[in-house]
């Protein structure tokens, strides 16, 4: 049954949406949206390295992304640069280096658009397996660091004072994020991964009452975006990656109008 390309695309997309949901919530809570962007930009350097060394680009993108994460922590710990400045430095530095490296590879016909926007319809069985394994790793590791990561996302000082230093949890979290960006790149492309991390989480924020509730809601909205986007792309023959992101955007906008509607109903019945 996995021979059907559309089913493979659905499975891959849904898996990525499920993995992205908890990570995306932490990205939103920790105000790290630009870190997702920086990771995406650095992916180009990873791709160039992968082609140069002739190894799987998922691996090199993950390695470059992890290096970025550690560099960011280092820059921030030194305290010399503000968070956003450090991020901008890393992200554009990596983008420049990546483009430069790619330009040196003469005779290489690189489908740059493919990397930027991905092709979820071309996902292979092997890639599905990789994403499945990644899902197991992400969920297991996140469950292990959940409490310290959650408390340090609420207030890092409070976490440290109570002996639950969030810094180890933060390192692990950033590495997971780098891994997921690398694995999701083939599906939705580097430019759109951040959208899949952020939009469902942002849409869920006003509707949830607990952190875990927000994760579940973000996961549902992410899955709905993938299914809706893919169905729409089949129906109207639109590019799949952007269709998924636009579906997520539509859900976000609808979710924004839900709380006011709820209040309206509540005041009407009072």
């Amino acid at each position: 049954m996995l021979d059907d390309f559309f089913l493979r695309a659905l499975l891959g997309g849904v898996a990525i949406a499920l993995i992205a949901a908890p990570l995306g919530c932490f990205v939103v809570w920790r105000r790290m949206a630009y870190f997702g962007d920086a990771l995406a930009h650095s992916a180009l350097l990873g791709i160039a390295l992968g082609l140069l060394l002739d190894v799987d680009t998922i691996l090199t993108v993950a390695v470059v992304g992890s290096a970025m994460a550690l560099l960011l922590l280092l820059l921030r710990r030194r305290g010399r640069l503000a968070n956003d400045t450090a991020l901008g430095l890393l992200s554009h530095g990596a983008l420049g280096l990546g483009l430069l490296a790619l330009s040196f590879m003469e005779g290489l016909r690189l489908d740059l658009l493919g990397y930027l926007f991905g092709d979820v319809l071309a996902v292979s069985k092997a890639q599905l397996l990789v994403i499945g394994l990644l899902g197991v790793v992400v969920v297991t590791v996140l469950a292990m660091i959940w409490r310290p990561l959650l408390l340090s996302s609420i207030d890092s000082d409070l976490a440290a004072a109570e002996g639950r230093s969030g810094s180890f949890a933060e390192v692990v979290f950033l590495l997971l994020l780098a891994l997921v960006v690398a694995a999701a790149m083939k599906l939705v492309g580097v430019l759109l991964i951040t959208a899949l991390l952020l939009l469902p989480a942002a849409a869920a924020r006003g509707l949830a009452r607990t952190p875990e509730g927000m994760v579940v809601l973000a996961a549902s909205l992410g899955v709905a975006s993938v299914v809706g986007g893919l169905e729409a792309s089949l129906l109207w023959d639109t590019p799949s990656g952007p269709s998924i992101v636009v579906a997520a955007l539509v859900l976000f906008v609808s979710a924004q109008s839900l709380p006011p509607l709820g209040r309206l109903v509540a005041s009407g019945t009072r």
Partner: protein
Amino acid sequence: MDHPGTPAALLQGRGLSFAYEGALVLEGIDLTLRRGEIVTLVGPNGAGKSTLAKILVGVLRSKSGSLAVQKGAVIGYVPQRLHLDATMPITVRRFMALGSPAQDRGASALADLRISHLMGKQVRELSGGQLQRVLLARALSRKPDLLVLDEPGQGLDIESQGELSALLAAVRDQGSAVLLISHDLSLVLSCTDRVLCIDRNICCSGSPDSVVHDPDYHRILGPRAAEALALYRQRNGGAEVVDLPKRADSA
């Protein structure tokens, strides 16, 4: 387990210092906290009070010297403000549970502060005063050996300040150490056993009555010190708002 009345050093710092971006904010701080005492840090803005508190609870690391905290000591920390992002949905109940997993402790701490009704509320929707109470309840629910409060008086009305000083006295009398940072001189005078006046280093220290007469204290705090002295005299004239028994064995 605890022996109220027999002061044991719970925390001992020697030669603590800290610098932000190369600018020294704390230098050569020696300080000992014992069980059964309330110590207050006073000093002008930017004197390093919050920084010192963060070093003592382990949020920041001193650039020099040594810090010894009794093994297994539980710390309750009430930060000046909470950095909670507005996108984080979390109820007071859950927030309490992240402090001490025992559910009943959180509930009884909220009840002690008469804020049980906030249990189901979102933390991000609390008012400043409510949040202060929740943070305090959360720290207390951990049954701390050392309770550190950074400006807890902010956002509390006068009535609840009396409540606060009675509460801190109760914590002390159960054999814990309390470190208080406060601008609020009436709060300081009503419940403190020992005052440390700091401005980068410790300028003077001692019982509240000795410190309010110390020339260093007046030099550092200026007009506010005079205000404290007036308040102190008024208090000793019999106008006590909160009646706390004087402890014979206070350090």
